[in-house]
């Protein structure tokens, strides 16, 4: 591939940033999609795979006697330090990666070449797993107050909104269009969540173009329509999630916020979540703390407080709690907006929904929630997560913050969620990996134009298939606690929010203590299930024996229970997989599990399989069992492959991939 200047560099050293262990010697490969480091240790041949789309920054450091160091920071918070013996090679790798990490066309992204060996039908089914129209039905819509509007058919009114939107029945097309003209980027108020129990709803929009005095009759009617759609309350809240100062500054630009005098029966509330630039800088500061080698207590505490990260998380949570309480306890509908209504609004609406509805705390429900509030409502994934080369000022960890909010809630309510921490980490990973088509582009419109569903695979189907890995053993659906709102104090205090080392420091520590407990629990749960099955089988047997005794007939009882185990994947899955010779071919020939596993596992905290086999090497970059073990056992000739052949193959298959794409 034209951007790869050198496909292979030998005698590269991978520095273990955390421990004092010596750097390991190995070979570095560049493929069309991954950077791969293979250790020279003959029997282990440990591999480290990094997707190009995960690379955040590449830094060439001053050359030393041992070689030229290259520091790669990843979007999933992994940091890789390589030492390349020749300055020239280092430069080539640097230039290649700089280009590879910044694709300019969607077609360059991994998902267009990734092939998990599923046929067309399976792929289509995968995309149908999460269905938003089903979700609205689940909420109880349409009903007497809300209807599906076709006003945005062909994205006529708003190109960043989906075509299917729920609006109050009394809002005519005239009102909607009028209102949309008075809203930034025409993002008019539409339904995000409907609370069946008391008819209150959460609606979302962008800021009004009110400037200092402008008003719009249709917009005022639109808000009235929302109020009337909830007969139980005579007012609605309008929540502006921005700090008041920011909102006021927008007035000078002809934007701003609702004037309470112009809208009847609204209660207006600012919440003060900072903008994407503040959030980006805050994360940057916190990551600097994470990068410290063995930080002291005061480095850590000061750094954490100075970054302000947890304060921002708290602000988002506070907003979500405010809305959830308004809806569930006051029975009032809420209209949420920020500036354009696609960042803070998405965060706050989804946190509130999560607090209100236990369905969103299940595995599938959580996927639906992201599909609804983030993907369909036009969160700018491409810009925020830098999938394609673009303005670095657009990049901000907006959905990362939402995912962290969910984690904080999981910490506070360990039994309320069906999924576990690993699920969140994997979703975060795939938002950046571009291995699946779900998070591509900035809007539904763009995705349809690009025919994403016909050309890529859905992450949800992949996660669903492997759901056994993501279950929280503490969750029980029939538990009373899970059947309603989560009861948080009005504003949880700062001391309740914790630093999420499982996310930001997960590559630094190897195994996390907490996760190990969860794994134990998982084992206990499995044991209990097996016992239950055994019991069932025994009972059946007993029944039979009794029958037999009654009938005086001898029948051999042959019932034997077969405990259903969700063992990960068997090696046979991988039997068709590639040999180490063609790394670049992996995207074509790897079975569904392995490629994703390949990069996921580096993100993994100990899986149960690991735990059982008590793999002695769980160190930082220890990679996927799929890749490593299988490869090494399947290829007896693994060590002696011809380097030239390698590179040749690389090129061929890469081109082949692109031809098909």
């Amino acid at each position, binding site marked *: 591939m034209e951007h790869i200047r050198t496909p292979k560099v030998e005698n590269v050293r991978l520095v273990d940033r955390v421990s004092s262990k010596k750097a390991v010697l190995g070979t570095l490969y560049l493929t069309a999609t991954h950077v791969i480091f293979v250790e020279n240790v003959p029997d282990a041949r440990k591999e480290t795979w990094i997707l190009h789309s995960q690379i955040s920054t590449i830094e060439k450091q001053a050359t030393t006697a041992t070689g030229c160091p290259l520091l790669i920071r990843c979007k999933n918070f992994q940091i890789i330090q390589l030492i390349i013996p020749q300055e020239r090679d280092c430069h080539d790798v640097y230039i290649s990666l700089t280009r590879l990490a910044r694709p300019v066309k969607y077609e360059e992204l991994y998902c267009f070449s990734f092939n998990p060996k599923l046929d067309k039908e399976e792929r289509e089914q995968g995309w149908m797993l999460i269905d938003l129209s089903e979700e609205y039905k689940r909420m109880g819509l349409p009903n007497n107050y809300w209807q599906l509007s076709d006003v945005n058919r062909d994205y006529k009114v708003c190109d960043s909104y989906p075509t299917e939107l729920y609006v109050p029945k009394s809002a005519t097309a005239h009102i909607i269009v009028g209102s949309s003209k008075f809203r930034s980027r025409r993002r008019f108020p539409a339904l995000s969540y409907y609370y069946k129990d008391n008819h209150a709803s959460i609606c979302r929009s962008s800021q009004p173009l009110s400037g200092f005095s402008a008003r719009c009759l249709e917009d005022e009617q639109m808000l009235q329509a929302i109020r009337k759609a909830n007969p139980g309350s005579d007012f609605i809240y309008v929540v502006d999630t921005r700090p008041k100062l920011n909102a006021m500054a927008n007035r000078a630009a002809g934007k701003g916020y609702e004037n309470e005098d112009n809208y009847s029966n609204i209660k207006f509330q600012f919440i003060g979540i900072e903008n994407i630039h503040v959030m980006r800088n805050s994360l940057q500061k916190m990551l600097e703390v994470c990068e410290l080698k063995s930080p002291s*207590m005061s480095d850590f505490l000061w750094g954490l407080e100075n970054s302000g990260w947890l304060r921002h998380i708290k602000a988002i949570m506070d907003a979500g709690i405010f809305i959830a309480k308004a809806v569930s306890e006051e029975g009032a509908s809420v209209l949420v907006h920020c500036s354009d209504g696609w960042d803070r609004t998405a965060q706050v609406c989804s946190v509130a929904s999560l607090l209100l509805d236990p369905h969103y705390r299940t595995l599938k429900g959580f996927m639906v929630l992201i599909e609804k509030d983030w993907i369909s409502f036009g969160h700018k994934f491409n810009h925020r997560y830098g999938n394609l080369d673009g303005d670095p000022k657009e990049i901000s960890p907006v959905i990362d913050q939402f995912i962290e909010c969910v984690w904080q809630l999981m910490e506070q309510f360990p039994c309320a969620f069906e999924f576990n921490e690993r699920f969140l980490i994997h979703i975060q990973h795939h938002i950046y990996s571009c291995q699946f088509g779900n998070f591509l582009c900035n809007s539904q419109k763009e995705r349809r134009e690009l025919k994403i569903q016909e050309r890529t695979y859905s992450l949800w189907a992949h996660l669903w298939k492997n759901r056994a890995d993501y279950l929280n053993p503490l969750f029980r659906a029939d538990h009373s606690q899970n059947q309603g709102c989560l009861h948080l104090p009005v504003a949880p205090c700062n001391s309740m929010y914790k630093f999420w080392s499982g996310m930001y420091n997960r590559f630094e520590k190897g195994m996390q203590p907490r996760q190990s407990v969860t794994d134990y629990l998982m084992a206990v749960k499995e044991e209990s299930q097996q016992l239950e099955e055994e019991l069932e089988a025994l009972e059946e047997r007993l029944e039979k024996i009794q029958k037999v005794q009654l009938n005086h007939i001898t029948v051999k009882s042959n019932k034997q229970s077969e405990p259903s185990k969700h063992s990960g994947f068997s090696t046979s899955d991988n039997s068709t997989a590639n040999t180490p010779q063609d790394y670049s071919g992996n995207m074509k020939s790897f079975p569904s599990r392995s490629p994703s596993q390949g990069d996921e596992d580096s993100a993994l905290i100990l899986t149960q399989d690991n735990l059982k086999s008590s793999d002695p090497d769980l160190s930082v970059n220890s990679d996927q069992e799929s890749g490593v073990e299988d490869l090494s056992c399947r290829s007896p000739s693994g060590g002696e492959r011809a380097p030239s052949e390698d590179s040749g193959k690389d090129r061929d298959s890469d081109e082949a991939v692109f031809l098909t794409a």
Partner: protein
Amino acid sequence: MLGKGVVGGGGGTKAPKPSFVSYVRPEEIHTNEKEVTEKEVTLHLLPGEQLLCEASTVLKYVQEDSCQRGVYGRLVCTDFKIAFLGDDESALDNGETQFKNKVIGENDITLHCVDQIYGVFDEKKKSLFGQLKKYPEKLIIHCKDLRVFHFCLRYTKEEEVKRIVSGIIHHTQAPKLLKRLFLFSYATAAQNNTATDPKNHTVMFDTLKDWCWELERTKGNVKYKAVSVNEGYRISERLPAYFVVPIPLPEEDVQRFQGHGIPIWCWSCHNGSTLLKMSALPKEQDDGVLQIQKSFSDGIYKIIHRPPYEIVKTEDLSNNFISLQEIQTAYSKFKQLFLIDNSTEFWDTDIKWFSLLENSSWLDIIRRCLKKAIEIIECLEAQNMNILLLEENASDLCCLLSSLVQVMMDPHCRTKTGFQSLIQKEWVMGGHCFLDRCNHLRQSDKEEVPVFLLFLDCVWQLVHQHSPAFEFTETYLTVLSDSLYIPIFSTFFFNSPHQKDTNMHQRQLSLPLTQSKSSPKRGFFREETDHLIKNLLGKRISKLINSSDELQDNFREFYDSWHSKPTDYHGLLLPHIEGPEIKVWAQRYLRWIPEAQILGGGRVATMSKLLEMMEEVQSLQEKIDERHHSQEVLQAEAPCLLRNSARLSSLFPFALLQRHSSKPVLPTSGWKALGDEEDLAKREDEFVDLGDV
């Protein structure tokens, strides 16, 4: 739920303000006063406990409410505790109090648990001590277990106020004589009341046999011997009657400097290397004496420097480690973060939470202790060296480090009885001055240093990080920390075994603790709670397994290499000591703060779910066993513990009665700066008040 005894202080009146004033109209008081006299609330006294003084019509504020509501009742002071008897106490005796502390009720404060007492005079808060000229209208009590009580004395008769306030101040703040400790009167009255529990195998280390047993268990008996030279405390009052020294050490050497300067055995590692401790020789000016001391030390060192003994490394804890002063200063700052008078104060500190935490440097001290322990372990384990801990009296940081090392290295110490035996061995027999360090007698503030608490906090970090490695849970540690201030158990109320024995023998008493060989936690909760305390994950603790193949002479490498391997919960256990991994022991410190409560959440939720699951497994197992034996024995359903776990709050089993008002309020605290109407009203009010003053 607060019943008739509650007075809606600010509720009815306009704009309640968060001050120390209560807005109760006189007529309300009158009606309540009647009810108080009608309703007789009984005070539960322990055997030997005596009522000293009391006051009625005291209003105890409900802390969680910013508007000043409260409960009327009697405030009493006995020779054991301060207690508040609310008028609606009986109403609270429902299922939720299933797990309550049997000795200390929700509104009981033992005299030793009192930390500071403040009085409020004209809305100004002043620390109270000594003789008072003027009596406060409000009493604030900060407890050592971090509870904060507010009592309003406005409606109490003046003489009663005088009596109760001066009584409380006297009995909690004034210096006390050892023999006036409540545990003596309790022991007299409750004699033979406690049954021995055969299941409890805590080793007390008060016999030669106990030490021999421990030597044998750790295979230390090859090079070390238990001695009885100090029987009857003939040689030293600081040393226990029996202890262990190197075999070649002549017994005369022990006598030479009353036990100072002698290596005393703490624990032996599986590879034979040993942890020793030594109290420093007295500091002398005289050259001649110094010469004698030197030759004595040289003689001692010759014994332990020679094979079969390993190379000795000395850790001078008096000079090269944290000072006791540092610990005390850090803890004083740290605890202030949790001794919160009102909600406003809480939110003010909450904003600066991490920097305040950092500023106290308590977490940093914990980290340094853990680090030092790992360093010592590295020497013992990887370098096969002996470590000699040297400290002035060998009874503070020596106790802390040697027990910390044992918890990390010896899985036996991670069982409940093992841990209790360890405390008995290193702390009680090691002569840690609990009496002085906890300032139980209020004789000198300077001696007060929470060394034992620091140890528990270090252990908590380990339990938090590696809970499957421990038989006990954090709840056990929290309850243990509370029992430091309950003068029923003798464990934590003496400076040395000598002091304990002499005081006990004189009176021919045996305290429940010693008699039953049980430790404070036994019988503290009702039986069922044992499930809560015993961690179900640390089932069997097997032999110490160790695989130390390529360990280098470097702490960092040792540490990294351990952490890069899967954890063997029955073997060596090292904590993570990176900054982010050292956490606040939330259960102990935040348990009384309603703002930090999560209804239906927290670790309690995990624990109860875990119990449910274990129960399920167990009952299934039982059913299967039944089937296998084809017996149709009907088994009674096992009682389900914590059935209503969903309703428990994260503060369970502490702070039982703190419940959130679930009224649909809009958050104000977080966005106070934005100023809603109510806030403005409050501000105005305060402004007017200031004008009046």
